[in-house]
């Protein structure tokens, strides 16, 4: 969609199965508000990045085309930042989380490649995040993800995630979930 994926060797069928299962589990933990277990799936050096998308002419691109690492973002987080976000969800005074937001994360188009870094995969996927609040609010966000997932002593860990949505204007008031 935006970033030209580098040509990398394709992971084995077994590895693809394992990585897909990792992403599906992650989605389920988020839907079940098991945020602490979700944090456990992340590498301690996690870079979780969702840049703002800018509507620019083709002859006037930013460094990455429609986004730029020095520009504004939705998420540009490290572990401490993600832990703080989880901490807000857990406060009894997070008024806008009670009644709860009901989440469904759908993950598809999973492709797995062998990344140049040791013990690391580059995994591409698409997502649909559906949230409902109150009686009738519904918000759908979809996009592409480019992940680096590393095999560590503690199992597979998400090391890097780049989240790209097609929208230059977010069609809802917030993103009170992880994508």
């Amino acid at each position, binding site marked *: 969609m935006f970033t030209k994926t580098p040509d990398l060797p394709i992971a084995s069928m077994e590895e693809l199965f394992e990585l897909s299962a990792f992403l599906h589990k992650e989605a389920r933990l988020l839907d079940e508000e098991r945020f602490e277990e979700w944090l456990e799936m992340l590498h301690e050096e996690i870079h979780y990045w*969702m*840049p*703002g998308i*800018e*509507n*620019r*002419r083709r002859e*006037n691109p*930013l460094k990455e085309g429609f*986004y*730029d690492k*020095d*520009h*504004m*973002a*939705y*998420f*540009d*987080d490290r572990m401490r*930042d993600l832990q*703080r*976000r989880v*901490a*807000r969800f857990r*406060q*009894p*005074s*997070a*008024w*806008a*989380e009670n009644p709860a937001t009901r989440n469904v994360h759908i993950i598809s188009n999973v492709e797995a490649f062998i990344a140049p870094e040791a013990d690391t995969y580059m995994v591409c996927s698409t997502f649909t995040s559906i949230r409902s609040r109150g009686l009738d609010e519904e918000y759908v966000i979809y996009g592409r993800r480019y992940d680096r997932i590393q095999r560590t002593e503690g199992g597979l860990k998400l090391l890097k995630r780049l989240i790209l949505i097609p929208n*230059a*204007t*977010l*069609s*809802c*008031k*917030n*993103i*009170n979930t992880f994508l």
Partner: protein
Amino acid sequence: MSNIIKTLDVTDALPNLKKVCNLDEGRISGEIFYSQEIYEQELEKVFARCWLFVAHESQLVKTGDYITTTMGEDEVIVVRQKNGSIKVFLNACPHRGNKVCFSESGSTRGFICNYHGWSFDTAGNLVGQHESGIYEASEFDKSKWGLKEVAQVDSYKGLVFATFDPEAPSLKEYLGPMTWYLDALFDNQEGGTEFVGGCIRSTYECNWKIAAENFVGDILHAGWTHDSAARAMLGGAVAKVSDFPESYSVNWNGHGYEFALDTVGNVAVLGESKLNRYVHTIKPSVAERLGEFRSNMIASVSSATIFPNFSFLPGQNTVRVWQPRGPNKIELFTWVVVNKSAPEEIKEMWRKGAMMTFSPTGVFEMDDGENWEYCTKTAKGKVTAKQDLFVGLGMDTLLEETPLPGNVYEGQLNEANSRAFYQYWFDLLNAKSWTEVPNRNKGKAEAE
């Protein structure tokens, strides 16, 4: 031949407008957040007349640099001219009205309409068309058909404002003494400020006034609404505003700034000790530049709105415009402002910190959106919309004897700014022209 936009003929005031608010009695009604009829009046009497924020000068560095935005619901292009000035044009081709610029920012030598190939230079002049020969045969006068130019453009300390109305008072007169307070954020260091790259846009199903009023003078909500975010970021509750020994609410022409003098209360919620240290480090030089008083405001517990829809938070350094999109919808445009002279590391921390706190993913903003949407949506009920809403805190708190400029009220836990905001809105909706807008300012027009 001038292509400058003329003052619009405005329609008569709504006959029942008097019922929707009475600020002397400290009440408004939910109707003002939901009525389509009132909204139509706002577009012509507020957004087509007032000075509106359109850009920061740092977004338009070189000749031909442009951004597109909206003034009310009108699409405009803001572009740097060869002589260094800034012009604002309607982003609509004078042939059939199609948009001539579809990107949000960039650098260009001109704008070409996709429909019939009308081509304009950055000064808005029509310089050519597809099949130009047939226009010549019709004795077409190109000079009459340039891009329609917004009547007045001016800037204050890097903030570029524009008004459609040639009869509007000057920006200086419009802002009045609020500029003295704006300096605390926008001119506290040599070189002034710049915007971080990019703009985050999101959509709220709320009325624009409820958001603008939140920033004009509602710190009261912070301790309650934002308790969860404060605990997440700081591990404790928000500072208790009523404990501050000295704080103020100041307004002028519907603009408002509420602030404490605690220097770092706002920046502290970003949870980055280096940012707190930066503020303390520059404070002596701010005191030298702006005086001791305003050096206490750099990043203190504070917020502000320039009427009608330009708001910011010193300390979190979020700057935003609440773009009206119907009575019950807004698009929120947000930017991050930093001192040009700040170290890169500090700028980067503010970029991330503003996102982490006040943005669609910000842990503070998440609880605001819910409130603003339902303040708006409940007024869908005809009966609910007609009931009084209380806006009467701090009725008798005007400070008569103060060296501070503007209409100065004691304490920031005070609805004086909110009342002044709605009063100015109400006055504009009742005024056929600027001369009919009553002067309700009571304080000093300039700092002593």
